[in-house]
């Protein structure tokens, strides 16, 4: 483009924070059939042979969990891993931003991202995700026969997720969105769920998820995490753990006790009662603990 200082642009694609122990680089790769924006986080020191692809969650959870995912990517890099995070087509800065996101797009995007990370010279690649992102990470780790998986609060079946999705978006509707009803089939083939376009096709794709049936060969090492108020793991993470163990996978479990644990995936900024001009991140501590916990577990997996 004429008149644009491309040298200056190129110089600012990377940011290095040696004190924090990581370096980040923006990429614009083709993932899921079109261009998107991705961030590659590398350790400042000598990288280990392990890499991670972050599979973001679905709908509004993509942005409600992104701070947690960024913290996790940087914590993993600090402990020696190379990490790739990206926007699935239909989200954020992706080229097909006008198209409603699909589950197939999440899966295809994660598979392409694994191939991209492999081209960076990483030998052992794992997938990481939270909630439906954890489910996608599990499906992709199985499909691609990956050696590593880290999934927090994954859903073993899609219909349970959709019930939760509806509840989350109905809560959002209370603060200004449209109603959370999901008629099937909807008159237009899609439903406006508090501003999110959920197509009938995507809903059916998600409803059809059954990890007990869809994941049949994963025998790698997995971290299955949960966050709860009381410190118990909860049935969802337990169901995924049981299934992976039955397949022969080596599963570690981690539970973070946090009062906001059940709200993972929801909008987490709260206005401070005594000062309406101050917004507090009510889940920052949970995010930090989840990131450190994942990185601590992953550090032990680097030998292979």
């Amino acid at each position, binding site marked *: 483009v004429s*008149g644009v200082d491309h040298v*200056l642009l190129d110089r600012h694609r990377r940011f290095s924070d040696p004190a924090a122990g990581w370096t980040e680089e923006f990429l614009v790769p083709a993932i899921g059939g079109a261009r998107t924006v991705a961030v590659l986080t590398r350790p400042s020191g000598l990288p280990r042979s392990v890499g991670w692809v972050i599979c973001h969650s679905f709908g509004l959870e993509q942005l409600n969990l992104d701070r947690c995912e960024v913290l996790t990517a940087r914590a993993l890099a600090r402990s020696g891993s190379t990490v790739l995070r990206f926007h699935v087509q239909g989200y954020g800065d992706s080229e097909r931003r006008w198209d409603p996101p699909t589950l197939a797009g999440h899966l295809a995007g994660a598979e392409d991202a694994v191939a991209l990370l492999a081209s960076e010279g990483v030998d052992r690649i794992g997938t990481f995700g939270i909630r439906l992102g954890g489910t996608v990470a599990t499906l992709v780790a199985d499909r691609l026969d990956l050696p590593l998986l880290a999934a927090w609060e994954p859903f073993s079946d899609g219909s349970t997720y959709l019930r939760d999705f509806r509840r989350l978006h109905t809560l959002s509707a209370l603060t*200004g969105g449209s109603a959370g009803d999901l008629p099937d089939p909807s008159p237009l083939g899609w439903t406006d769920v508090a*501003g999110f*376009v959920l197509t009938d096709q995507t809903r059916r794709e998600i409803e059809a998820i059954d990890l007990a049936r869809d994941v049949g060969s994963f025998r790698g090492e997995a971290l299955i995490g949960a966050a709860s108020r009381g410190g118990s793991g909860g049935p969802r993470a337990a169901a995924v753990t049981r299934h992976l163990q039955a397949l022969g996978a080596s599963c570690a479990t981690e539970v973070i006790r946090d009062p906001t644990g059940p709200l993972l995936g929801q909008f987490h900024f709260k206005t401070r009662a005594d000062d309406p001009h*101050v917004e507090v991140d009510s889940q920052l501590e949970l995010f930090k603990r989840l990131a450190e916990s994942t990185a601590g577990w992953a550090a032990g997996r680097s030998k292979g």
Partner: protein
Amino acid sequence: MIEVPVFVPHGREALASVLAIPDGKPRGCVVLTTGVGAPRSHRFSVWSKTAERLANVGIASIRWDYLGLHDSTGEVPVVQWSDDLVRQTLAVATFAKRVLGVDRMAAAGNCLGARLALRAAADMDGSVGAICMLPPVLERRWFHRLLRQLGASRSGRGWIPRMLRRVGGAGSEGNDGRHRPGAALLRLKDLAVRTDPTMEGPFRRALRTGRVLFLFGDADLIERGAAMERLGRLIRRLPPDAASRCEVRTLTGGTLVRLGSVQIQRETIDTVAEWMDARFSDAP
């Protein structure tokens, strides 16, 4: 159009940003800012879609993440209005201007981003204007905070709401089934707030060289009625030529809070793209 993600330097940290550059020489550049909790692309990609629409009419844009949030670096325990937020916005604008070699700039934002867009329009060289969606117009007075704190206390939980209802009158039920407070309570609420004193200066400065559009959703008329009323008072105090460069518009399709419907998102994108197109078509 090409889009280039960059880390814009800000002190020792970096603000994750995406420059959307149209084919050919850009007519100008718009700084797109969000409210707290939304990344640079905004909820439901509203800013990245807007960026594409702007590029289609030859206007560049830069959308960015606040320091310590999303892909930006740094640590921020809380997000609150500060001079540093203004410096962040201006750092992004200056970077875009330098990279693109453009003279004319504009800004758009919602909530906290609306306040920053106004400041940017006031302080950027070559500013042609700002769009402020759901601007935080009001500042609460000390007795608003006192009532709030009393209301939150255990002893105040029961009697304060009861007293306010008694003082405020019975109120009425609106067409939407929501309760409207009585006239006296509305008056009390009006006295408990004032127009944010930090708003008027930048507002007047922004209008010296450009135009300002305030946007609300039709469902915001009740919740934000007091803010809109104060905004009206502020505009009426302006000299006629400045007031003529200012507009308050209501979009149909619900509330702009969290862009909670597909229709309000479409209206927002259309409005921002068309208004900016007109601004960069105005004679310099």
